[in-house]
C-alpha cells in the first residue's frame, strides 16, 4: 500500500483530483477553504494499492492556523510515502513557496501542475524539462477537471516512492556561493552563506541530541524561523546562533529563488489580460459590485420561479392522479374513511405538497452551483467587505451569510472561520435571517396565490429583507458592543471557470437528495402528527377541525400574532409545525385546509377562497412570509447554534431575539400596510 498525501494551496484542485482518482463525491467549489479536515480514499492503479489523503489547503508549513497544523502534522508523520503537491500552475509564485518547503522536508515529493488550461489562456508556457533540474523533483502537468495527465502522475508517484533523494541539481545562479559546503549540488533551495552557516551549526546540534530526526535540515530551518512547535519539541542551545529572527530573510530568499525558477521556466509570458481580470473589473467594482450581485440573485430567483413553476404544474398533476388513485384503492381495500383521510389528506397532501416544489428547489441549486463553481461566490465576500466593515464585521462574516441561502446548519458552522469570538457570535445571530432553501415553498405558495403578477419579485424581496435586516442588526450590535472587528478579509479570488458538469451534478444531487430525505422522514411524520392534532380532541374524533387539539393550541397564541396580521389558529399551527422544518409550514397548510394538491393552480385557488373567507389577504400573506423568513429557524439549526456557541444562554437569546424581530417586522409591515390597504 502506498500512502499518498495531496497537499497544496487552497482552491488549487486537490479535492477534484482526489475525487477523480477515488470516485468520491466530496464537495468541491471554486472558492478557497472548502476542505477543512483531511479525507481518505482508496484507489488501485496497475495492480498497486494506493491510499489517498486529501488535506486542507494551506499556503505554508508554518503552524499559525488549524489547517496548517493538521496538514503539517500529517505529512511529517511516517504514514506518508509520497507527497503530491498540487500546484495552480497559473499562480506559480504563490504555489511554489509551499513546494519549496515540502521539498525541504526531504520526503518524496511530486509536483502536479494543475490548471494548465488557464496557463495556456494566459499566453504562457512552462518548461517542464528545466523545472525538475532546478527543483530536483518530478513535475507533471495535469488537469484534474479534464482528467488529463492523471495516469502519468500516479505512475510517477509509484516510481518516486522508492527514489526519494534528489540526486541532480543544475542551477545557474548569478552569484557564486563562497560557502564551504556549497549545498547547490545537494539541495534545491540554498540560502545565503550566513544562513547556511547557521543551518549547519543547528543541524549538527540537532543530530547530536536527537538522533531520531530524519529531516534535520528542515528542522534546523524551522528553528532559525523560531517555529514555536519545533522549538518546544526539540529544545537545543540556540542563544549563540539565533542572534535575530531569520524568518523574514528565509522567506525572502525563498521568493528570490522562486523568481529565479519562474524567470527560467516560465517562458513566452505575454502579460495577456485574461478573462478573469476583465470580468473582475466589472464584478468587483466598488460601486457596481453590489448592484450586480443583487441583479444576479434576482435573475436566479426569476428562473427559480418562472421555470420552476411551469414544471411544478406537471408535478401537481401527477400528485392529483396519485391522490385520486390512492383514495380509490384504499376505499376498495376497506380501510375506512378515517385511515383513508389520514393517508390522502394527511400524508399524501403533506409530503406530496412538498415534493411538487422540487423543480423550484432544483432550479435554485442548479443556479447556485453554477455561481459557486464559476468562481463568482468568492467575489461576493470581497464585494461585501466594505459594507461588513462598516457594521463592525469583516467580509469573512458574509461567507456564512451566503451559505445561509442554502441551509442555516452549515452556514452557522461556517462562522468558525472568524477568529474573533465576538464576531463569530454576531455572525451566528444574523445568519438565520438569510432565506434558506426550505423557505422557498412558502414563498412560491403565498406569492403565487396573492401576488400572481410578480411572484418572483415578492420572493426576491424576502431575500433582500433578510440580507438588509441581518446587516442592520449587525450594525446595532456593533453600536452596542463598541468593539469592531480586527479580523481582516484575506480571500483568494479564483479564476473564473466554465462550471464542471460533474461538480454541478454532485452539488445539485446532494441538495435534491436532502430535500427528498426530509420529505420522506421529517415531513412524513410531521404530517401524520398534524393530521392527528387536527382530527382529534379529548373526546375523540372530531367532525370540525376548529374543535381539535390543533385549534386549541393555535388559539392560545393567536392573540400574540394578531397585531402582525396572523391571528388565525391555522396559521399559528402551521408556524409551530414549521419549527420541525420550514417546508412543514406549507405541508401543514395542505393538511389544515384539506387541500391535496396545494401547489397546483386549482389547489391555490381553492385555498385562496378559504383564506379570503377568513379575511386573510395579500397583506397578511406578505406578513406571513416575513414572519416565516425571520422567526426561529428549524430545530436542526437551533441545535447547531447551541453546539457552535456552546451556550444555552446564547441559544435561548437567539430564539427569543429572532421571534422578537420577526414579530416586530411583521407587525410593523401589517400596521403600516393596513393604513394603505384599508
Amino acid at each position, binding site marked *: 500500500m502506498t500512502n499518498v498525501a495531496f497537499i497544496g494551496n487552497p482552491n488549487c484542485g486537490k479535492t477534484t483530483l482526489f475525487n477523480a482518482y477515488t470516485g468520491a463525491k466530496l464537495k468541491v467549489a471554486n472558492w478557497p477553504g472548502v476542505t477543512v479536515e483531511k479525507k481518505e480514499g482508496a484507489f488501485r492503479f496497475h495492480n498497486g494499492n494506493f491510499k489517498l489523503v486529501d488535506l486542507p489547503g494551506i499556503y505554508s508549513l508554518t503552524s499559525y492556523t488549524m489547517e496548517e497544523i493538521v496538514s503539517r502534522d500529517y505529512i511529517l508523520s511516517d504514514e506518508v510515502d509520497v507527497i503530491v503537491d498540487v500546484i495552480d500552475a497559473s499562480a506559480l509564485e504563490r504555489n511554489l513557496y509551499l513546494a519549496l518547503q515540502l521539498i525541504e522536508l526531504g520526503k518524496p515529493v511530486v509536483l502536479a501542475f494543475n490548471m494548465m488550461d488557464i496557463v495556456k489562456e494566459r499566453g504562457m508556457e512552462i518548461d517542464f524539462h528545466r523545472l525538475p533540474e532546478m527543483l530536483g523533483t518530478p513535475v507533471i502537468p495535469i488537469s484534474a477537471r479534464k482528467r488529463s495527465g492523471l495516469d502519468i502522475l500516479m505512475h510517477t508517484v509509484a516510481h518516486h516512492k522508492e527514489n526519494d533523494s534528489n540526486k541532480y541539481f543544475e542551477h545557474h545562479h548569478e552569484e557564486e556561493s563562497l560557502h564551504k559546503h556549497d549545498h547547490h549540488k545537494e539541495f534545491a533551495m540554498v540560502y545565503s552563506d550566513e544562513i547556511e552557516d547557521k543551518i549547519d551549526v543547528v543541524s549538527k546540534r540537532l543530530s547530536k541530541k536527537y538522533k531520531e530526526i530524519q529531516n534535520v535540515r528542515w528542522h534546523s530551518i524551522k528553528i532559525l524561523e523560531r517555529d514555536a512547535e519545533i522549538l518546544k519539541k526539540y529544545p537545543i542551545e540556540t542563544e549563540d546562533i539565533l542572534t535575530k529572527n531569520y524568518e523574514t530573510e528565509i522567506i525572502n530568499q525563498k521568493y528570490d529563488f522562486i523568481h529565479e525558477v519562474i524567470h527560467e521556466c516560465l517562458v513566452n509570458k505575454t502579460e495577456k489580460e485574461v478573462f478573469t481580470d476583465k470580468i473582475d473589473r466589472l464584478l468587483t467594482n466598488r460601486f457596481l459590485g453590489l448592484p450586480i450581485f443583487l441583479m444576479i440573485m434576482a435573475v436566479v430567483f426569476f428562473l427559480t420561479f418562472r421555470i420552476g413553476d411551469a414544471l411544478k404544474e406537471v408535478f401537481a398533476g401527477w400528485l392529483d392522479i396519485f391522490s385520486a388513485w390512492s383514495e380509490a384503492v384504499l376505499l376498495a381495500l376497506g380501510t375506512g374513511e378515517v385511515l383513508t383521510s389520514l393517508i390522502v389528506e394527511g400524508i399524501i397532501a403533506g409530503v406530496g405538497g412538498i415534493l411538487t416544489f422540487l423543480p423550484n428547489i432544483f432550479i435554485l441549486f442548479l443556479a447556485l452551483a453554477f455561481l459557486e463553481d464559476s468562481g463568482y461566490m468568492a467575489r461576493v465576500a470581497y464585494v461585501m467587505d466594505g459594507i461588513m466593515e462598516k457594521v463592525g464585521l469583516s467580509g469573512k462574516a458574509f461567507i456564512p451569510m451566503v451559505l445561509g441561502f442554502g*441551509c442555516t446548519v452549515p452556514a452557522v458552522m461556517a462562522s468558525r472561520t472568524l477568529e474573533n469570538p465576538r464576531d463569530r457570535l454576531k455572525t451566528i445571530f444574523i445568519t438565520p435571517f438569510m432565506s434558506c432553501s426550505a423557505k422557498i415553498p412558502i414563498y412560491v405558495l403565498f406569492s403565487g396565490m396573492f401576488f400572481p403578477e410578480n411572484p418572483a419579485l415578492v420572493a426576491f424581496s424576502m431575500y433582500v429583507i433578510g440580507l438588509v435586516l441581518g446587516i442592520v442588526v449587525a450594525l446595532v450590535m456593533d453600536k452596542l458592543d463598541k468593539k469592531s472587528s480586527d479580523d481582516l478579509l484575506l480571500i483568494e479570488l479564483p479564476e473564473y471557470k466554465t462550471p464542471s458538469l460533474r461538480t454541478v451534478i454532485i452539488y445539485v444531487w446532494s441538495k435534491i437528495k436532502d430535500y427528498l430525505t426530509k420529505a420522506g422522514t421529517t415531513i412524513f411524520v410531521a404530517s401524520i402528527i398534524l393530521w392527528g392534532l387536527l382530527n382529534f380532541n379529548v373526546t375523540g374524533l372530531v367532525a370540525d377541525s376548529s374543535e381539535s387539539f390543533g385549534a386549541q393550541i393555535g388559539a392560545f397564541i393567536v392573540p400574540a400574532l394578531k397585531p402582525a396580521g396572523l391571528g388565525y389558529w391555522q396559521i399559528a399551527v402551521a408556524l409551530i409545525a414549521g419549527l420541525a422544518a420550514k417546508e412543514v409550514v406549507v405541508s401543514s397548510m395542505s393538511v389544515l385546509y384539506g387541500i391535496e394538491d396545494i401547489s397546483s393552480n386549482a389547489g391555490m385557488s381553492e385555498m385562496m377562497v378559504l383564506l379570503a373567507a377568513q379575511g386573510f389577504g395579500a397583506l397578511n400573506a406578505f406578513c406571513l412570509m416575513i414572519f416565516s423568513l425571520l422567526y426561529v429557524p428549524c430545530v436542526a439549526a437551533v441545535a447547531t447554534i447551541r453546539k457552535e456557541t456552546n451556550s444555552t444562554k446564547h441559544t435561548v437569546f437567539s430564539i427569543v431575539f429572532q421571534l422578537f424581530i420577526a414579530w416586530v417586522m411583521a407587525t410593523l409591515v401589517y400596521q403600516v400596510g393596513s393604513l394603505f390597504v384599508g
Partner: protein
Amino acid sequence: MARVIIIGILLGYCAFVIYRKVKNVKAGKFCDCGCSSCEAKCHKKEERKQD
C-alpha cells in the same frame, strides 16, 4: 385486515424515523445529514468531544 397492515406499516415507519432522528441527534448529527456540502455531515460525537 388491510387496515391493520397499513396502520402497522405507518406506526413502524414513524417509530423508525423518530428512533433514527433521536439516535442521530445523540450522535451529534442535528439534521438529515444528506448534504455533502454540510460541515456537520461526518461529525461524530467523539469528534465533538475532542473539539
